[in-house]
């Protein structure tokens, strides 16, 4: 239970960083922290204490199945990390372009549009 709680704390830290920081690079870091908190959450969902890799070998008894960790969340996390990498690349390149246009990373100086 504690790990889930800590995971949500990490998510909230990312959200805080996103909301409270004015520097757009720090906002990007906030997003990345949130993404990683969710990835961690998915791993925890599939985790088992004392678990082994889910590979069936000859001579394994029925009891071995009990000790297998769930491989699906790991596959999901791999996909999600790759997507996160793509989004991160786009975010960072947009930050660079914004810096070229405005000469600053400070969001409060960039806001021309009103929302």
């Amino acid at each position, binding site marked *: 239970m504690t790990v889930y709680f800590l995971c949500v704390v990490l*998510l909230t830290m990312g*959200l805080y960083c*996103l909301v409270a920081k004015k520097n*757009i690079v720090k*906002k990007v870091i906030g*997003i990345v922290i*949130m*993404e990683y908190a*969710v990835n961690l*959450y*998915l791993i925890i*969902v599939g985790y088992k204490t004392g678990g082994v890799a889910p590979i069936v070998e000859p001579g394994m008894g029925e009891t071995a199945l009990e000790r297998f960790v769930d491989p*699906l*969340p790991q596959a*999901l996390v791999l*996909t*999600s990390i790759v*997507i996160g990498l*793509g*989004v991160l690349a*786009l*975010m960072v390149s*947009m*930050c660079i*372009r*914004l810096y070229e*246009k*405005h000469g600053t990373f400070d969001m409060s100086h*960039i*806001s*021309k*549009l*009103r*929302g």
Partner: protein
Amino acid sequence: MNLVPLFVAIPLGAAFLIPMIGFWWKKSGEVLSTLSMVALSVMALASIGAPAVVHHMGGWAAPKGIAIVADGLSVLLLVAVNVIGLLCIIFSLKYMREYTGLPKYYGLFMLMVAGMNGVVLSGDLFNLFVFLEIASVASYALVAFGVEADELEAGFKYLILGSVASVMILFAVGTVYAVTGSLNMADVSRTIAAEWAGTEMNPALLLAAALFLMGFSLKAALVPFHAWLPDAHPSAPAPISAMLSGVVIKSLGVYAICRVFFNVFGFAATSPGSVIIANSMIGFSVLSIVVGGLAAVGQWDLKRLLAYSSIGQIGYVTLGLGVGARVLATGESTTLAALAIFGGLFHLVNHAAFKSLLFLSSGAIQSATGTRDMKLLGGLKERMPITATTTNLAALSIAGVPPFSGFWSKLIIIVAVVRAGHFGIGAVAIAMAFVTLVYYVKVQKSVLFGDVGRSVEQAREVSPAMYVPLVLLAVVCVGFGILAVTQPAIGERMLGPARDVLLNSAEYVKLVLG
């Protein structure tokens, strides 16, 4: 042979090939994307009325393998996405000439279409998330395609809020997996039907539902999650604005809400959780209708006005669906739920047609006059008769003037709301329908009629490549309005299957799992 996977494969392949070939052959984008969108539109139109198809990827049966499901609701969205995509591509051929890096534009456009087709076809929660991200990433890049200060800022805002939505959706997918041990929507739906229906609610599922609702509402730009839309939609190039407002917010937002809540969570009559969800849907919708409508009245930038209007109109769509959901959740008559959902879906299709028409028209106006400031426009009827006529038809349609399609869909929604006993909400919906009329009269008065504005004096009618899509969409707007009255059977044939999918989640489970 089963052609359904091609809906994803064709645009994905085109998105990959266009920038690669574009290195040597500058016209690759125009040619390949037009060809693939024509093929996709024909396939989508051909699947109207066909029986639902389930394709198991690689031959693995449903709960273990990945399923692609093309049922009534998916087909409805496929038609909207691909037909409007085709018209936007035709419009782009001329309009986008003033931009550089065109192969990248067409590549991203096809990637966005691939993502949206994937979202509407996916029968699996995680694939829904992956395709949602594909479509979103492509749309972030397209919003910032002009790489000027405004575009970048709008794109960055959209990117940050969209990423938060994606994180929430992934969190919810993980929670659903932790509770049910499956990701296949039909399988999850079967498990939840047992867990969710009792009076004791599983709090983890309620958390997942809240996260899904928040994530998808952010993608659909429902108030209070709308802050990115009024910046992002006007900043994009006009065909992209038309795609974003016309189909992206619907397939990534409204469709996903429908599929996840109606088919996966289900609005079972005994569950307190489903009443909470239905009530929040109605709440967000009413807020969107009011905030979007009132904010639109004060705008003088044509595209910003249209963007705010999108928020309001999406509110009507989700109001219909939300009232339908609430009727299902409280276990009142199914016919009333069917009416409300039918109204919501009808307005969804109508809005896809007239809002993309309005955004394309705004692009044509901007390209002919060089401005979209409504104070500088005026008297467009004299100089650009075709664009002015199509804009006028779309404005009348969206404002809900009787013979046009927008009137009938809003009427059905309001009748359903009132018959469900929500008199206050019905009154708000009627009042805001008049506000819609007010700001479209403002568009007519300051853009189409009146004295010829300063920027309009030199304007000439745009070339056929640009006005043909406008005329086609205008025909759709008028046609839907006339058909809705004279040929109800056609409306039933198009929207009926989609409505039945939402009404009966047990049928969906049976369809996928056999």
